[in-house]
């Protein structure tokens, strides 16, 4: 997408970009620590020569324990409520803790700590505390992992006041947004997409921040605005390429931040294109897609030539069998036909 050829950039994977952001922030700031299940792996077996046996469930944390030791890279027992809560507690007393929740599907076991402590402490305490806490977690269907390992619950986090959230869509945004998330003084939930770990892109070697709360336009167009979230940005781009062949110029906005939401960026685009399709892998009801459509309908009402529309997962859990799951996630065909439907209204 964004092409970038400054000095000191090179092509690395999304996964590596995440790793690099954590590593550089840990180098830069002693108060940054990271904890979670299998973050390093084989915990407590240094005496057997075992160290970093796992490197993170998706190898995003590989090598950190070697560099920073087991006091800053902490494998945890299988106890999300405790260690997420502890990371919040540590972050409110001087650390800048990162915790990893292996799959966002498991958030229900530690939701209270996020909802009632991380999100509310600063407000309830009248501003006495900062909670510079980052929760790493992952989303995305398409791997035959069924209903408890495939969800994309980010909209729940957009809903909760006091939390911020980002959904990087490629290696470049993965690093820049994670750097910003770690440095940010508010709790930020960082959603990795399982389908993007192998994505490669040009990434600066130096640390850099991409601002939280800012969307970006990854393709310009005049006829319709496609808003993508996380991997769905790629679906939008592919659909846009295809649509271009039949003369429809789609603008693609990569939302990047799910709280704060960059409404202005989307609205500015819709004011030019007069049509909106939000592509969201989460289920449809009370989703980010609903939110953006509603906001655009309210604030750009007079600019819309067609109904603001959504392409999302259906209101069902994620099925296991490929023959079902294949149709579950939004895909190019659905985006294209939705756009065509809007264009057909004239």
């Amino acid at each position, binding site marked *: 997408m964004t092409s970038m050829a400054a000095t000191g950039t090179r092509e690395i994977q999304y996964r590596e970009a995440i790793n690099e952001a954590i590593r550089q922030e840990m180098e830069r700031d002693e108060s940054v620590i990271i904890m979670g299940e299998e973050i390093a792996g084989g915990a407590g077996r240094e005496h057997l020569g075992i160290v970093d046996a796992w490197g993170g469930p998706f190898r995003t944390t590989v090598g950190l324990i070697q560099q920073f030791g087991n006091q800053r890279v902490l494998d945890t027992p299988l106890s999300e409520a405790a260690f997420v809560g502890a990371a919040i507690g540590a972050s409110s007393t001087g650390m800048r803790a990162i915790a990893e929740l292996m799959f966002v599907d498991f958030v229900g076991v530690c939701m209270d700590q996020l909802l009632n402590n991380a999100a509310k402490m600063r407000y309830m305490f009248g501003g006495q505390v900062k909670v510079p806490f980052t929760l790493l977690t992952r989303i995305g269907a398409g791997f035959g992992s*069924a209903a*408890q390992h495939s969800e994309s619950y980010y909209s729940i986090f957009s809903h909760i006041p006091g939390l911020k959230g980002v959904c990087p869509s490629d290696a470049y945004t993965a690093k820049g947004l994670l750097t910003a998330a770690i440095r940010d003084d508010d709790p930020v939930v960082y959603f990795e997409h399982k389908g993007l770990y192998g994505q490669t892109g040009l990434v600066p070697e130096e640390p850099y921040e991409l601002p939280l709360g800012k969307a970006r336009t990854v393709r310009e167009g005049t006829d319709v605005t496609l808003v993508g979230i996380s991997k769905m940005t790629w679906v939008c781009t592919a659909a846009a390429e295809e649509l271009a062949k039949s003369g429809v110029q789609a603008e693609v906005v990569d939302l990047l931040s799910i709280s704060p939401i960059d409404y202005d960026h989307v609205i500015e685009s819709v004011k030019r294109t007069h049509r909106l399709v939000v592509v969201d892998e989460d289920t449809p009801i009370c989703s980010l897609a609903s939110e953006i459509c509603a906001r655009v309908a309210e604030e750009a009402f007079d600019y819309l030539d067609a109904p603001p529309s959504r392409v999302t997962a259906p209101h069902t859990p994620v099925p296991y069998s490929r023959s079902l799951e294949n149709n579950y996630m939004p895909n190019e065909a659905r985006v294209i036909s939705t756009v065509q439907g809007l264009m057909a209204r004239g």
Partner: protein
Amino acid sequence: MELDRETLIKLYTTMATIRNFEERGIPETGQRAMSASVHSSAGQEAVPTGICAHLTDEDYIGSTHRGHGHCIAKGVDPKLMMAELFGRATGPNKGKGGSMHIADMSKGMLGTNGVVAASVPLAVGAALTSKLKNLGRVAVAFFGDGGANQGVLHESMNLASVWKLPVIFCCENNGYAESTPVEYGLSVANVSDRAAGYNMPGILVDGMDVFAVYDAAGQAVTRARAGEGPSMLECRTYRYYGHTVFDNPLSYRTKEEEDHWRARDPLKQFRETVIPQGDITAEELDQIDKDAEQLMEEAIKFADESPMPEPAELYDDVYVSYPKELLKRGSNMEI
């Protein structure tokens, strides 16, 4: 240990079936590129086998992500399980669940479960049903040494004890939660040391020895059926393979350790105990092994020949009743 021939055969058959299911079914599933999230219980066969031998189809079990053994021991048809793993419409879950969600309500199998320890309160609830309806059924909640550190287990053990429910909390302590050794993650020597904190017996048992498991489970089941309340059973066992098919267990454990446990293989131990006693011959056991192998061939064939679910089944069984059009309204679904 006075077991009749029939029971002995049943125990061995169950173990051999589980072993074969894991060793054949999992790679075959992988070859069909169905899923990454399949967990082998090879090595742990004695645990579900010894426990479920005391249960009927009316009794309940709640299971884990590593649940093929629980299913088989509870009587779920391996053919149907294979179909489920292959994502076929003929699976007990019609292909909607896969390895981590296999359920068979007709067998009291309340589902393998992808969230660690999440099925524990379900088993407690099933035990409550039994108690309130006076059904005399028991429920077994399986969980791992990793699961031992989940909050819901603590709450469930306390609740079951307060309500004196017929539940057995069975910890399959295989030494690891993914790559995390139990001696790191668990603050106490044995999971069963925690049972006292809930006023229930905590029995530590050799989980590689199906007779030891069978014995201990017998006591716990008797206690439960007698209305005397829950027990905890910790079975020390070992998984022979990685956490899933993707990891190399030698990155976090040693060859010596693996060898040590493999030397105590539950099927091997069974043979070494039973054959000298003269109850069953080696040939008979060989035949059971062969039958189990054969069953897997049939299961694979059955699964391969079974249809995939129709795409529109995506919308089935979300609810018992719900306007179906609402499941896709506004999503711009294709089907």
